[in-house]
């Protein structure tokens, strides 16, 4: 299917009946393909914006214990998928590094779940993100974005990431729409399984 954007600058507005905004966050280290994934499935060209956060002097790596408030600005990008007449899904590409910790609570509040994009050449970039998501209780899947042929099996990667068996781990090529779509489907399938298992509260 053709890539959804026309040449016109104005993007298509949402349907008049759109009323439920949903969120999925794509996290991962620098250059791992977050924006690429958002672009490949989004119906609009990814937009970027920023959020200014006021943090009350609780910097994690700050040994001078600054009192008072610090303002920090974080840029992120996002895309959009119209699911039906009422539901619209927003995909956020968010930096996964520790120094953005203050953004995480906000981005993850109310999110359906997260995709952790992993570049196996820089596995350590993923650890913080996985740790944070587990801490938040945000459901997630891990997707290995392949830059060239993978050198390890997914099982080896699972071990290296110390990833529990119940967390789905898949391969993807973030540049391809069907591949990125499959990752999102894997996430929502996972959520569905979790939610269905919980549903009948005896």
């Amino acid at each position: 299917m053709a890539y959804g954007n026309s040449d016109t600058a104005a993007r298509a507005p949402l349907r008049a009946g759109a009323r439920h905004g949903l969120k999925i966050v794509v996290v991962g280290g620098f250059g791992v393909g977050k924006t690429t994934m958002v672009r490949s499935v989004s119906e609009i060209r990814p937009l970027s914006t920023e959020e200014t956060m006021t943090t009350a002097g609780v910097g994690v790596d700050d040994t001078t214990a600054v009192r008072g408030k610090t303002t920090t600005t974080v840029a992120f990008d996002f895309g959009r998928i119209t699911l039906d007449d009422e539901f619209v899904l927003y995909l956020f590409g968010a930096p996964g590094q520790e120094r953005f910790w203050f953004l995480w609570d906000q981005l993850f509040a109310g999110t359906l779940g997260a995709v952790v994009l992993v570049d196996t050449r820089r596995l350590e970039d993923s650890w913080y993100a996985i740790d944070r998501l587990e801490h938040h209780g945000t459901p997630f899947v891990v997707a290995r974005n392949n830059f060239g042929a993978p050198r390890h099996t997914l099982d080896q990667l699972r071990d290296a990431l110390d990833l529990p068996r119940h967390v789905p781990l898949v391969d993807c090529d973030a540049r391809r729409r069907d591949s990125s779509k499959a990752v999102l489907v894997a996430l929502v399938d996972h959520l569905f399984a979790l939610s269905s298992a919980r549903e009948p509260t005896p």
Partner: protein
Amino acid sequence: MKPRLDDEDPDRLYTITGGRSRVGGGSLDLVTLIVSESEPTAGMQSEHARILRTCRRPTAVVELSADLGLPVSVVRILLCDLLDAGVVTARHPRPTHSPDALPSPELLKRVLLGLRKL
């Protein structure tokens, strides 16, 4: 203070928000959809007028932020003015309960259906 809107003005954000840094806009999620209930009026602050025009169709807070080139926190403040004036309404996302409260299987099924159609 007199508004002096200018992209290059370092005080621009301060000017736009009238110096307020925090109002009740915290309840506006990034994906809250904003809808205009009336047309812009003459003399209205330009950002307010622009939001009203854009939101003739539902528009997420985060999209407004990208359109206006303003941080989300500033857009929330502008939206609070418009909500207070009753010229826009907000379609909030489903309330989020505790962090590990999952969406219902019905909702997720709908998301899956939409994704599969992509």
